[in-house]
């Protein structure tokens, strides 16, 4: 294991049960397993050529103009589905942008992954999601501020180049479990590889 390098490890993980569980299980179950930097590195590897050009400002404008209308009103957002991405669980103090100490490790693991040579030349979208409790406009704003807090921590404390990180919020508009819009599983952070740094 030690001498085979990250590519060898990536190949084994991708074919193994760990990566499959991370990608296929409902987020809540996948998150219950201990996250590792290797899973993040493997799961967020660049596609080589990007199929969709992502403009974070266009995403922000679209959701801002369609608050409370749900996924059907967000065609630009639906294009993100085809990109390499992972969902992580980062918890915040109630109604606050402060990350709880219990989630510090996850932020550190994301930093480990973003500094790895396999991911070093890629840009990432950090998307904040809330559940459906409360006002949709308020939730949108909170999800944006929380995504910005994660970006700030990565870009300052962990010295990830700020031009590689884009924070956007989508509030309650794209629930993980549309059948249970108030469920905790909908509160999540989505990391999306949006292609090489220009």
């Amino acid at each position, binding site marked *: 294991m*030690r*001498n*085979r*390098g*990250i*590519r060898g490890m990536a190949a084994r993980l991708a074919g193994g049960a760990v990566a499959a569980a991370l990608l296929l299980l409902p987020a809540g179950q996948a998150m219950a397993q201990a996250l*590792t*930097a290797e899973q993040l590195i493997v799961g967020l590897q*660049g596609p080589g050529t990007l199929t969709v050009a992502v403009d974070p400002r266009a995403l922000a404008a679209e959701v801002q103009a369609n608050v409370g209308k749900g996924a059907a009103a967000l065609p630009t957002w639906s294009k993100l589905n085809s990109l390499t991405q992972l969902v992580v669980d980062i918890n915040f*103090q109630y109604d*606050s*942008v*402060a*990350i709880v*100490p*219990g989630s*510090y*490790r*996850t*932020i*550190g*693991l994301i*930093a*480990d992954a973003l*500094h*790895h*040579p*396999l991911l*070093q*030349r890629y840009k990432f979208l950090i998307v904040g999601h809330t559940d459906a409790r409360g006002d949709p406009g308020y939730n949108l704003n909170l999800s944006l501020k929380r995504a910005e*807090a994660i970006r*700030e*921590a990565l*870009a*300052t*404390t*962990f*010295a990830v180049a700020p031009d590689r990180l884009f924070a956007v919020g989508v509030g309650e508009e794209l629930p993980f479990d549309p059948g249970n819009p108030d469920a905790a599983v909908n509160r999540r952070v989505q990391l999306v590889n949006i292609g090489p740094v220009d």
Partner: protein
Amino acid sequence: MLRRKFVAVALAAAVLTMGTAQAATISFGDAMSVMARDCGADVEKYCKNLNLGNNRIADCLVQNQDKVSPVCINTLVAVTASLKQRLAAQASVVKVCRGDAARRCTGVVQKDAHILDCLIKAQRHVTNKCNAAITDAGWR
């Protein structure tokens, strides 16, 4: 005040020591686990609505060091040094391993982890310095 000065001095000493001693580094994930374990309760108590970014948690803990547990202050010093050391190790790999890459990895495409992978596979033929740099960067 005196204690704050102590923290600053201890921090500087830790950074210097780690910089020269080439001690093995730890990952950001592990560093943050230690931070949460040793400072979590103090953060909840004194810095509840502050964030990790821009040094806000570290500044808040230092400002409240008369109340914060000594274990947390020690951990904060060590973790701050450890983050710096890991970043420095990662930044040094390209330079330290340049000669090894030229010798062992000619023709390898210079993007993503191709060179790194080549150096890791050629570990037995790579200089100790380069091997140590890769290990300290956490990329093995």
